[in-house]
């Protein structure tokens, strides 16, 4: 909550230092499985095929790469905004519901969440396909004669990603909403606020940290999305992760792919840092716990 946004002290009392040893296995695992490969990628990006910053110069100067970078961020941004608009009411309904309703709503949010991403992406291919359910309904209603091209479009990418990422917004937001003291909206009502004004003046501002937390999570995940845009999108909807995959699997350009990966990582960290600076990272973490 806003009221408790404080920084934790980073110094550790000497008597607690020995307990830090308990962190060793986790730190070791992360170092081996994450930090080391990352370092190797970073090194490769400036050594393969020859030493130098050539790859980065290419990325920074060749129009196509900048466009893909911008498109990737644009896609992530639209998807994030859409999940906020769609997810907020769902989280609200979840927070307000009791008993059977709550159970049903939670199931509706969690079941897709627990289903493999690949399965859900294929499901969308079936739904949006030439003779999928959407086109059949549209034709049955006489809205269109010919099946529309829905699959392999930017629309399909958006729909698929929004669907897959929605729970990442809803769940942290729901947690923030249920932790909000109901007396706060009651106080607003008793002080003369209509239900709508109590919602807009008190409930929404106080659940914004949850929105920020969820949106941040969705945005960062969306930046690295690969499977869904690759399967649902058209040839024009190239994202950075698809570009990386292309470089590796089709052109075997490991060095350039590494440079692209580092670029994506740095851009993501930059967004996080900006968000942390302007929104307060502490609040975002608080929204997540």
């Amino acid at each position, binding site marked *: 909550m806003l*009221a408790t946004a404080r920084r934790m002290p980073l110094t550790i009392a000497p008597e607690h230092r020995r307990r830090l040893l308990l962190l060793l296995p986790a730190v070791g695992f992360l170092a081996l499985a994450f930090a080391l490969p990352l370092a190797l990628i970073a090194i490769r990006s400036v050594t393969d095929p020859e030493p130098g910053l050539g790859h980065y110069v290419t990325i920074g100067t060749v129009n196509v790469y900048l466009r893909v970078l911008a498109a990737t961020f644009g896609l992530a941004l639209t998807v994030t905004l859409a999940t906020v608009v769609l997810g907020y009411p769902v989280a609200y309904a979840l927070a307000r519901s009791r008993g059977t309703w709550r159970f049903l709503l939670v199931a509706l949010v969690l079941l897709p969440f627990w289903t493999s991403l690949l399965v859900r992406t294929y499901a969308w291919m079936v739904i949006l396909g030439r003779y999928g359910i959407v086109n059949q309904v549209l034709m049955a209603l006489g809205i269109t004669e010919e099946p529309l091209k829905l699959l392999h479009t930017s629309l399909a990418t958006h729909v698929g990603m929004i669907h897959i990422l929605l729970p990442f917004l809803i769940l942290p937001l729901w947690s923030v909403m249920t932790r909000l003291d109901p007396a706060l909206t009651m106080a607003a009502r008793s002080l003369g606020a209509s239900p709508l004004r109590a919602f807009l003046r008190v409930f929404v501002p106080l659940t914004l940290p949850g929105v920020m937390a969820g949106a941040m999570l969705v945005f960062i995940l969306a930046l690295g999305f690969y499977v869904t845009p690759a399967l649902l999108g058209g040839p024009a909807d190239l994202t950075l992760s698809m570009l990386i995959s292309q470089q590796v699997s089709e052109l075997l350009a490991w060095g350039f792919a590494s440079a692209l990966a580092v670029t994506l990582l740095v851009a993501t960290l930059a967004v996080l840092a900006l968000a942390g600076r302007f929104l307060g990272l502490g609040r975002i973490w608080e929204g997540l716990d």
Partner: protein
Amino acid sequence: MAAASGRRGAPVRLDGLRKDFGSSVAVDNLSLEVGAGEFLTLLGPSGSGKSTTLLMIAGFVAPTRGEVFVSGKPITRKAPHERDIGIVFQHYALFPHLKVFDNVAFPLKMRQQPAARIAERVAWALDLVRLGDLGSRYPHQLSGGQQQRVALARALVFEPSLLLMDEPLGALDRRLRETMQGELKRLQRALDLTVICVTHDQEEALTLSDRIAVMNHGRVEQLGTPEELYERPQTPFVAEFLGESNALAARVLRRDESRAVVRTTQGLDMVVAGAAPAGEGEVRLAIRPERIEFLQEGEARDNVADAKIDEVVYLGDAVRYLLRIPSGETLIVKARSVAGGGPRMGDAVRVGWSADAVLVYAGAGAASANGLPPPPKAGEGRGRG
């Protein structure tokens, strides 16, 4: 202190209020009147229906039956924001994203008051609670006591016809609670507020209230001034809940017009004043611990017993003794503490109490028909929450 604009609190009437939650009855046929400018407390153990009653008055819980009147007009079908009732919540419910000034200005903004008027009223309300210079702080930058005052200012700034408080001082430490009790009483008198306050703290209820309604199982067990309730509790529950009481079960042995002799289940005989309830039946007795005295050689009372001191608890201004009498009963006795003196643990003493110190209630059968639980062991009646 700046003057209020002359509006005083309104009279309130609850008429047959009832609330069912599924098959359980939270509030049962509750009727009472609160005068304009009166401080009424709903006092009762946890789960007795106090908060539900308050929420029905405020409009957050729809009564199953019954009506709430303010100034003679029914408000039962009005939405909470149309009721003109100020509420102080237990944990204050200050808006954490708004500064103190904006918290207090909130009800005025909701009423579309002009900015100049808002500034003036907020200043008035903050002065009222002696927080004049803290308007630009956020709630989390304030101490508990200060937050409590902001909540009060916010609930008073729009001069509501009625102020509701749910355990308003429950979250404060004892010292602060006493100060705030004084302030609250001062404000209520100065502004002529009608207040309905909920608490399970009997001391708070006794200090603040003009009248207290003792609630149990969703009903008002007794309604009266603090003195009436303490001196003449009408049911064993009230005797137990308000203050401490020695509860004993007994049987009437014989009676005349002004006195009766009863025998407790353990076999202690005592004289009680007033006509005991008619019939040969069972009765319940309650004796306040401070009405039992230690007797010197040769001193006499209506009732006298030899006893041994089992336990001594020093309370500062008083000492609480646990006595065992030969018939087997334990009695709690409370006496003013005397420097360096007083009986000690293990001492054999003689105690006595007058006939009119014994409160007599119709017996166990009649009491359970009233929906009363069996009397708790003496001393348990307090501080339940």
